Every structure is written in structure tokens, then in C-alpha cells.
């Protein structure tokens, strides 16, 4: 599964490290060290995925994201520093798919990339998702874990389906609320907390030592079996 990846990052050592890591995975890498060049390359080369640093010398990474989103849905993975929580969330709202926090490990980055690139190779979701003993059948709204029926309600099933179809990827609260409860409920995060808790109980997942559902504090959730 090789892909063309654009790295927009002003720091040369990080670019070098990313090139080494990505090319070892079999990806083709192009680099840009300013926002302007990043936008230009994204337009010219139409990459399969963009790794975008939020702090660029000539403009905000967000500017690049918004420009790119005007013509393409190419997945964007944000590289953020932990202090820039606000910028990270803004980027997710503006259409970025996921983020990693610097400093990140290669393994973590590659796992995220795989999650994003899967969508590219499998644009239409199948009727049945299978994840590490969890089987979710969309046709009859049934989910089983190790063959045991989870007996999910409609909303619980929708939530699990949403998370599972983005397995390994961040799903923001905003996204979940809009998709399941409708745009009018975008702020009602307490619904979401309650449903996540119920889903955890049914999955036999412990919030204090999670195996299935991982919370990204203040941002959203990630279904990551076997992490």
C-alpha cells in the first residue's frame, strides 16, 4: 500500500526523519517548507495524503488546510505541538482528518497513516466490519463480540458503526454528534458521554484501562482495537 505523501514542515531535521520513515514503508515523499509552497505542491502533485505542520514560517498551517479543502478531500494529518490545543481542534473542524502530537513515535505516525489511507483504498464501506473479534453487521444492525450478541440500541449501534468505520482514527465529538443526533445537537456532548459509557459496558471495556474506545481528551474518540 504505497502512497504519495506531501510533507509540509519547515524544520529540516523533521522532514529528513519523516522522509526516511515514510520511504521505508514504501511511500513516495515530496516536501514543502513554507505554506505557499505547500499549497502549490498540493495543487500540482495531487498527493494521496498531506502531513501538515501547523507552525509554518510564512502562514498558519490552517491557511494551507483551508486552501487545500477548496478543491480536494485529500486526507490531511496534522502535526501539532501539545501547547497548540486550540489550533489542533480548529484544524480538525476545518477538515483535517487526524493529528499527531510532536514529538511522536514513528509507529504512532504510521498507524495513523494506515487508518487514513484505508479510506482511500476502500472508498465504499462494506456492510460488515470485522475488527479483532468484533463483528458489526450494518444490514441487520447487529454487533457481536467473540460471537456474543452485544444487544445494542439503535443509537449505540450507529455510534459503534461510526467509530468502527473510522477504526484507528480520531472521530471528533462534533462529527459524532452531527452524524448521529443531527446538526442541532452539535453541542450536546453529555449525550455522547452517556452513550460512550453504555457502549463501553456492553463491549466490556474499562474507561480506566481502555482496550477498545480511547478518549482524546477534549477532542473526541478513537476505536483502536488491540492498541
Amino acid at each position: 500500500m504505497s502512497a504519495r505523501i506531501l510533507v509540509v514542515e519547515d524544520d529540516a531535521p523533521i522532514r529528513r526523519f519523516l522522509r526516511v520513515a515514510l520511504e521505508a514503508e514504501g511511500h513516495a515523499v515530496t516536501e514543502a517548507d513554507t505554506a505557499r509552497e505547500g499549497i502549490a505542491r498540493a495543487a500540482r502533485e495531487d498527493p494521496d495524503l498531506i502531513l501538515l505542520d501547523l507552525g509554518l514560517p510564512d502562514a498558519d498551517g490552517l491557511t494551507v488546510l483551508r486552501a487545500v479543502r477548496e478543491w480536494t478531500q485529500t486526507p490531511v494529518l496534522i502535526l501539532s505541538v501539545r501547547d497548540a490545543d486550540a489550533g489542533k481542534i480548529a484544524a480538525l473542524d476545518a477538515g483535517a482528518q487526524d493529528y499527531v502530537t510532536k514529538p511522536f513515535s514513528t509507529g504512532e505516525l504510521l498507524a495513523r497513516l494506515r487508518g487514513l489511507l484505508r479510506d482511500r483504498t476502500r472508498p465504499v464501506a462494506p456492510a460488515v466490519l470485522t475488527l479483532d473479534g468484533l463483528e458489526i453487521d450494518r444490514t441487520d444492525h447487529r454487533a457481536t463480540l467473540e460471537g456474543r450478541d452485544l444487544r445494542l440500541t439503535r443509537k449505540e449501534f450507529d455510534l459503534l458503526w461510526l467509530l468502527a468505520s473510522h477504526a484507528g482514527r480520531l472521530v471528533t465529538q462534533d462529527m459524532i454528534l452531527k452524524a448521529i443526533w443531527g446538526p442541532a445537537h452539535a453541542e450536546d456532548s453529555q449525550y455522547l458521554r452517556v452513550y460512550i459509557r453504555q457502549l463501553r459496558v456492553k463491549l466490556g471495556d474499562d474507561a480506566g484501562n481502555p482496550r477498545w474506545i480511547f478518549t482524546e481528551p477534549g477532542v473526541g474518540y478513537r476505536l483502536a482495537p488491540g492498541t
Partner: protein
Amino acid sequence: MPDTRPDPEALLAEARRIGRGRLKIFLGAAPGVGKTFAMLAAAARRAGAGDRVLIGVVETHGRAETEAMVRGLTVLPRRPFFHAGRILHELDVDALIAARPDLALIDELAHSNLSGSRHDKRWQDVEDVLAAGIDVYTTLNVQHVETLNDTVARITNVRVRETVPDRVLEQADEIELIDLPPDELLERLRAGKVYVQDQAARAVANFFAKGNLTALRELAMRTAADRIDAQLQEHMAAHAIAGPWPTQERILVILPEGAVGRDAVRIAKRSADRARVEWLAVALTSLNGPGDPAPDALRLAERLGADVTLLQAEGDPTAEILAFAQRRNVRRIVLPRPTPRPWGRLVPNAQDRLLRGLLRHAVQFELTLVTDQEATRQRRRPPRPAMAPSVRGAAIVCGAVLATTLVARLIEPLFPVVSLPLLYMTTVVAIGSRMGRWPAVLAAGFSFLVYNFLFTSPYYTFRIWNRGQLLTLVLFLAASILTGNLAARLRERVIAQRAIADRTGKLYDFSRKAAAAASFDEVVWAAVTHVAAVLGCRTILLVPEGDRLAIAGAFPPEDRLGPRELSAARWCFDHGEPAGHGSGTLPAADWLFLPLTAAERRIGALGIAFDDGRSARASDRRLLDALTDQVALALERIRLSDDLAQTRVTSEAERLRSALLSSVSHDLRTPLVSILGAAEGLEEPSLTEDTRTALLSIVREEGERLDRYIQNLLDMTRLGHGALKPNAVPSDLRELAGMARHRLRRSLKDRPIDVGVPADMAPVQVDPVLMEQVLVNLLDNAAKYAGPGVAIRIGARVSGARATLWVEDDGPGLPPGSAQQVFDMFWRAGQGDGRGTGAGLGLAICRGIVEAHGGTIRACATHPDGHGARIEMTLPLTNPETAA
């Protein structure tokens, strides 16, 4: 003499009385002051002005001047009454009213009419006359005023039956006080110019006592003064009489012989001030008493404005005091509570007897007993020190032995001779216990001789024939000396113990004062006042200021010292030894200076001087030494704590800066050294796979450590600038704990972790990102310090409006006494390059974050025995900012 006052109230009252005659009362304190004469004089003036004046009744009592006054006026014939076989005359009210004069004179307002008259009382007749539109002049003695009747009876012991209601006085248009100083009245009495009624005649000696007259005079004045009569005030001013004052509530303080009594004086003064009454002090003296009656208290009473009287009383002064109190119209008696003494109940002294007497007899007075603080202190004073051999002591011993001999002589016929030595021995023991060792030995020797001389045959010689008697005598001498000595020793021990107790008490007093003092100046003040009070001297305290000694405080206040004194103080301070008056150095100075030294450091010098120029006694010096030590320590303590506070303020910033520098140089460099070293090692071509992996993991772990450190520094900077605004949303603490654990999964991989946060716990309003950081820091710390494999527990519960969240372990626990410090920046358990890896910022950040949420954080032990570390936070369930 103006009849009316320009007083609107009076004018109103007059309007009400239109058609009614005006009443003027000539008020006197006692018979004989000249009321009738004054009334007649006033009436004569009215007659001279053209008014028709008619005398209804006037008692001239045969006095020539009075009769001369009557002669110029018309007299209404009196109405005859047949009473008990005699013809008596009474005022003819009907005739008086029918005559319609402008002014009628009716003497003796309090007079009781004979039965068969129009009214029982003359004042009722007067009312009728007034109602008929006729002015009335009348006379009245103050003891006849109804409400004053009791008071007068108490003062004079004479109760009058004829009384006039106060209402009559109140309705009088004018009251004129006829005042005659008691001395003049007594003069007139002696000259036979005062007519005394029969009933009063029996008690005339009592009634016309000067004290009575004075009290009555005051009573009369007060009664008149109550009318706020301008005319009266003029009169009083002219006669320089102070007033008005209520005469019924005087306070008397009694100062018995030998009492301290100053507190009693103060209490009396205070009560008098509060009640706005006059107060008196009586000092008791007796001819053979200890002399001055409480001189300090007396002086104090005088200074505070008491009317002081010396009362010389032989025997029981109770009666004298009560008589005085009655005369002076006292309501309350204040006296010092007799100092409790051993055997005081059985053998009362003069004070005890006085109190008992007052309790029994002073039934119509309020008694106030005041416990004297000074007396209580004085009681603790040790008994007189052992008597040095003196003529006086020897005389007392001889006297006692001779007295014993007299007793022995008297009982000799009744008891066997052999019991007599016991009598002497008792005397010896008594002398030993009262006077000490040498008097006891002397008494024993003297007793031996006397006994030998008088009671052993041959009598009246010092020879002894009988062997048995010789033995008795020798044994008697030995036993007397022995028991006398024992008694003396016992006494010495008691003296020593009391002296110690007294000294300890004084020192304790000071340390209590010094401990309460919060500043240097307060300690100085406590020191000088205390030393001055304890030794009865002037006290001054000097401390170095620059290179000279300056006065820090003095009692009584003093702001300069002479050159001799200053150089003595200087020498004392420089050499750390006493100097000045009574010492070996610079003895010409007026003051004695003692060095104040604490912990090898000279703090200053304490100077004392006695008003009479004497030197400090040896016992004073011992106490003084202990006191200077205490003063020095107290001053040192306050100075140290001042210094400490000062240093703390100025060095906080400095300390942080240097801590940051050392932290940066150490914590930033150490991981870099490892990373660079490992990187170099990786360049080596001949590397085994294992070594390579090991080196790589070093690079990764050290890199992570560096990242954490930098993150902490950044967080801390943000917290320090107050830039951290928690974005609080309802958060699930169990989730946050789970994520923190997940983030640290690599360093926590082999460690049992128990997340005990209830799954159904209510969400807490926190910033999830920051709170996760807190939990990460706490878990990281616990993992670092608890020791490998030791379990870590995260727990939470809700109590009221707050949630409590904790992270605890079973490791060795916090270093003792560090529960507060652990939250300080750059604080680390252990020093140097030992276990304490990390910047010492983790907990400081936690505290910053928790406090930004309106919560609190503290560190304690997990288990009661002190082992295990536990960090506990309380957080508001709803964040005030988001709730609002």
C-alpha cells in the same frame, strides 16, 4: 429677685394655672436655718411693693428678730380648737380665703392639722388657698419630703411622721433654698436660737450632729437643684457649692490597715464615674497598728478625686464605719478582700474581723469585695530571710524563754516537773521555725540554763546533784538543739522553695509577655516594663545601631543618657560583662548595665537604676541574670524571625532563578549527553544487534525525558504568567485516568495499577487536557519514587459539591516534613544525581492546574504509619466560571 423665668415651659405651666395663686416654698435642710425669717423678709418686700400680705400662720418660736418682722404685717387670727382639754390654735382657712389677700404666709407646710379641721394636712389647706387665687409663701424642711423620708431616716436615725407629697414641691412655682453651713447652724443651736420640736428634742444630739446636717444640706440642695432654678444655681455658685449631685448613691471605699487596696480604689472610682456619683475613701488607722494605712491606695484615692477621710478606730471599726457611711449617705461600700491566710478562718486578723462585722451589720448597704492583684502577688513574697545574729533577735529569744518560764512556774504545782522540759522544747521548736537556726540554738542553751537554775535541786543554782536530773537536762539540751535545728532547716527549705517559685513565676510572667509580643519594639517594651515592675527600678534597654548604642526602650520612658552611663553601657556591650553602678567597672555611673547575649551574639545592654541610688541586691542580681537571659532570647527570637521573613521575601525570586539555572544545566544536559553518546555508539560499524537495540532505546527514552522536561517548563511558564485558563467541560475522571495511564503505558508496563474511580461517578467540570496532564505527572512521580513493582492506585469520590481525586502508592512515602515542599518548584526528593530524575516541576504544575480549577491539592501518607505517598486533590463538581 425675679419671680419668673423666660422659660417657655414655665410660661405654659403658668397658662395652665391662670386664676390660681403662685406657691413659693422656702426649703431648708433643718430647723433653725432661717426659713421663716427669709419668708417674712420676702413678704415684707411684696408688702412694700403694694401687695396686700396676710399672715395665715407663722411660728416665731419667740425669736425676737422674727417677731419684729411679723409686726409690720397683718396677722389673721387663728381659729381656736378644743383638743384633749386644751385650747389650741390652727390656721383659719375659711377666713383666709374670705379675706382675699394677694399673698398669704403659711408656715410649716408639713404640719398635721388637729382633727376637726378642714383637712388632715396643712399642705391640703394651702392647695385650697392657691385654688382661690391667692399666692402662698410657705416653709418646709427637707426631711418632710415624702420620698426623701427614708434617706433622711437612714442619715439621722430620726424618722418624721409628717410628710409632704413630692407633687406639692413639683407644683411649686418657686423654691428658695435657705442654706446655712452646718457650723453656723450649730452655733445658733448652742446660742438657743433654734426651736426644736418635742419629738426631735429627744434625739436632738443625734439629729444635730454635723455629719447629719451636712448630709441634709446636700439633700436639700439636691431637691432644690432638681428644679433647675437659675436663682438657686446663682446661690450655689455664690457659696461655691458643687452640684447638683444625687446624694443617695455615694460610694465608699474602705482601706483597712495593712491592705494594698489599690484595686478597690480603682473599682470604686470606676463605679462612681459610671453612676455619676461622688465617692469617698476612708483609711483606717489604729494607734498600735502597723502604721500607715495603705499609703499607696490612699494617695491613689486622693489623686483620683475621692473625698478622703482618716478614721482612727480602736478595736472594731465596723460601727465607726457604718456610722460614717450613714452620715455621708453612702449606698455602696467597697473594700479589698482580705488576703487569704493559713488559719485565717480560725485566727482572724483585723481585716477579717472588719469584713465579718460589715457582713453582719451593714445590712442596708451594698458590699463590694475586690480581690487585690497586688496583694495576691505580695503574698507570694518569701518570709523574712533568716535572722542574722542580732541584739533584737537575742532579745526576742530571751523574752520567749522567760515567758515560757513564767508559764512553767504557773503550772509547776499542777504537773510533774519532768513535763516542763517539753514546754521549753516547744518554745525552741517555735523559735527555730520562725527565726532560724541560731536563735533556736540560743533558745535551747538559755532554756537549759533557766531550767537548771529554777527547776532542779539545789534550786537557784546551776549545780546539779541528782544524776537523773542531770541526764534529763543533758538529753533536754541535745533534743532541743536537734529539734530546733530541724525546724530551722525546714523553714530554710520553705524559704528557698518560695524564692524559687517566686522567681519562676516572674520569669514565666515575662516569657508569657514576650511570647505575645509580635514585634521587636513590643518585646523591648515588655522587657523594660517587666524588669521595672519586678525590681521596682528604672529600666533602659540599648541596642546597637550602626556603630553606636541607641536606646530601644525605657521604663519610665527616657530618651537620653549621660556620657558616663553611655560609656558604661558601651563597655558592658563590648566586653559582655556588667558595668556601671555597683559593679567593678565605671561604678560612678548612675545606671548598672548588664549585657544581653543570646547564642554567643551580643544583642544589647539592659540598664537598671534605683531611685534611691542603691545597688541591686544579690537576690535581685540573680533574678536579673535570669531575666536578661530571657530578654536576650526573646529579642533574638524576634530578630531572627524578622530576618527570616525579610530574607524569604527577597530571596524567593533569586532562589527560583538559580534553581532554574541549575535545573536547566542538569536536566537539559543529562539526556543530551546520553543521546549524543548513544548516537556516537550507533555509528560504530561492528555493532551487535542487541547493543544497537539497547543504544536506540537509550536515545528514545532520553529523548522522551527531554520532551517531558521541556513540556513541564513550558507549562510552568504558562502557569506562572497566569495565562492558563482551564477550558472546563464535564469530564469523566475514570476516562481521564485511563488515558493518562495509556499515555504512560511504556514506563508503567510492568506495574500494577488500580483505577478505583467509580464508573458511574458524576462528571466533573475540568479541563480534560490539563487534568490528564495532572494525572500523568502524578502517575509518573509515583512510578519514579514508589520503587519497582509497587502498586499505584487512582481513586475518586464525590462529597457534597466537590470531588476528591487521589493517586497513592505503597512505596516509602514522602520524606518527613516535606508535605508542603513537594509542591515547590524545583523541589526533588533526594539530591544530586540520585533517584530524583526530573526537574522538580511535576507537582508544581499539578498544583498550578488544580488551583486554576478552584481546587486544592495536598500531599500526605497513604497509611497511618507514614509509609506510602498520596496526593489528594479536591475539585469543584461544577466550575464557577462555566456555571456562571
